[in-house]
């Protein structure tokens, strides 16, 4: 059965790619999603619920630890049990200190992170959407090669490229600039793949054909019609690109040396490093509170856009 469902994606449509393609299978979930989960036998199971509740304790406990300890002063951190409140409620004061420390460098880092996310993840989504759509809906010379190279790129260890990318950028004078972070973030082979898979089914050829007959150009059709049909896929790619750039650590670590260009991730680690070395002056309370502030926006984003990314991911639910 799995073959019947999964073989239906890109391959049988005559997408080029030869051997590679035939082996790749894509599940198109949008085809017949179930409205509700299906239980074959029985109603809710208490045992299962308890097992999952225990698992949730594991996934949420560190976050609880972080929230609780963001309410403690530096002194109380060391003298109290980690999973309960202690000492004066210092959260508000901690937040104030985070923003005031070092002439408000945290605000600068937050702004940098937003810039990298908007330009990097936004750009990556636009490029992946154009390209995925182009590959799904048109034939053009060299498409077979594009297919192979891009899918191969998904398997290239990103960090393996870090050293050569750094050397190349440093010869071009791009290191220690915002471009060193933004430009590499613009490429998301996985995002392209997801849009491609999504566009195959989400945008029917009949509609493109009808638009053509009405005299609409291909780009105009894309911007007025196709974009809307691709929306859940685009939101999904955007969200995962946002997470990737918001959480980016390795790239800024090697590319940037000017603290004024740091994103939050590198900045927080720098604060953490104050606890070691010769002139150690730990500010753990600020590291912890700063971490909370770095998590909140991204979690809120995920919660708000839940409906979109879950349907987008289901449709792309990908297999190699």
């Amino acid at each position, binding site marked *: *059965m*799995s073959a*019947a*469902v999964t073989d*239906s994606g890109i391959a049988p*449509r*005559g997408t080029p790619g030869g051997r590679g393609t035939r*082996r790749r299978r894509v599940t198109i*979930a949008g085809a*017949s999603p179930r409205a509700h989960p299906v239980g*074959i036998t*029985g109603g809710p199971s208490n045992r299962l619920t308890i097992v*999952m509740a225990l*698992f949730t304790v594991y*996934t949420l406990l*560190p*976050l609880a*630890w972080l929230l609780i300890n963001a309410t403690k002063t530096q002194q109380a*951190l060391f003298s109290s*049990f*980690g999973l309960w409140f202690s000492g004066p409620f210092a959260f508000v004061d901690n937040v104030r200190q985070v923003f005031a420390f070092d002439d408000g460098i945290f605000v600068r880092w937050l702004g940098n992170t937003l810039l990298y996310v908007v330009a990097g993840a936004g750009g990556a989504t636009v*490029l992946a959407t*154009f390209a995925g759509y182009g*590959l799904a*809906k*048109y*034939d053009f*010379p060299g498409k077979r090669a594009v297919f192979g190279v891009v899918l191969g790129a998904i*398997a*290239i*260890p990103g*960090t*393996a*490229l*870090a*050293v*050569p*990318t750094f*050397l190349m950028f440093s010869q071009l004078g791009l290191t220690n600039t915002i471009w060193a972070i933004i430009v590499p973030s*613009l490429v998301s*082979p996985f995002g*392209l793949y997801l849009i491609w898979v999504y566009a195959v*089914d989400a945008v029917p*050829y009949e509609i493109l054909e009808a638009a053509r007959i009405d005299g609409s150009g291909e780009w105009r059709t894309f911007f007025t019609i196709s974009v809307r049909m691709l929306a859940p896929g685009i939101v999904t790619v955007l969200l995962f690109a946002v997470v990737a750039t918001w*959480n980016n*650590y*390795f790239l800024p670590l090697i590319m940037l040396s000017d603290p004024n260009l740091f994103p939050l*991730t*590198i900045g927080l*680690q720098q604060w*953490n490093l104050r606890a070691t070395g010769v002139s150690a002056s730990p500010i*753990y309370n600020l590291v912890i509170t700063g971490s909370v502030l*770095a*998590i909140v926006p991204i979690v809120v984003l*995920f919660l708000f856009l839940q409906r979109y990314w879950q349907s987008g*991911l*289901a449709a792309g*639910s990908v*297999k*190699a």
Partner: protein
Amino acid sequence: MSASAPPAVARRRPRSFVGLGFTAPFLLVFAFVLITPVVYSLYLSLFRDRLIGGRSFVGLSNYGHVLGDPKFWDGLGRVGLFLAVQVPIMLGLALVAALAIDSGRLRGASFFRMSVFLPYAVPGVVAVLMWGFMYGDQFGLAANLNDLIGSDVFRPMTPPWILVAIGNIVTWEFVGYNMLIFYSALRSIPHDLYEAAALDGAGSLRVVRSIKLPSLRPAIAIATIFSIIGSFQLFNEPNILRTLIPSVISTYFTPNMYAYNLSFVGQQYAYAATIAIVMGVVTAVIAYVVQLRGNREARS
């Protein structure tokens, strides 16, 4: 719209440069940030940096050096062990969670789905700092636990436990992401299969074994490949923990850390590039073998 649309549709597609126009912007940036560095590192790997005399052509001898470098093998062995233990545990947990959430027998399934996924949204740096604090003997939970039982058994930041400690962090970060991949695949199983199974009197476990697990095979394959790539790339977690416990985690703890330290501390760029290429090849070969095996099983 249907997954089984007739392939004939493909023939009506216009063959023109319009599609290339859509794809070109991506390809330009792709060539700049992915292809060029690969080519450049291949070129670099043929040279050697010396403090005196500068850069000289040495052919393939860097590759020979890497293959005879005990520090490289030490790191590779460690990520290999990590891969063999951590990946099955993480994917197993993710699979069980996905099946449970999809079973329809869970109270508050959407709460569980979100809670399990949530750690993925936490920046890796924050995750490591958080767990690092919790592992710590100053004000961490490990210290609290040791106080409680009056011993010092819980010492995750010491040599015998450090790999387990890192494995736990990585599992925590990515179990939800993998759960979501599996869950999405489960949701795509056509409803009528379940109805047919119910008519045949199949129980929950039987449905899991005969319908759900076979349908999940492609999703498991891709999650495995991504996890293999992730394991070989292991860098962030040990590198950040290293700032807390430099004596426990060496500069060549993983091949990636070795390459990083060689280039940014030791200025041995050519040798670092060689390690990066060797690791890229190792990763690609293993991912390919896993995929081949997965396909063979799927066919049989």
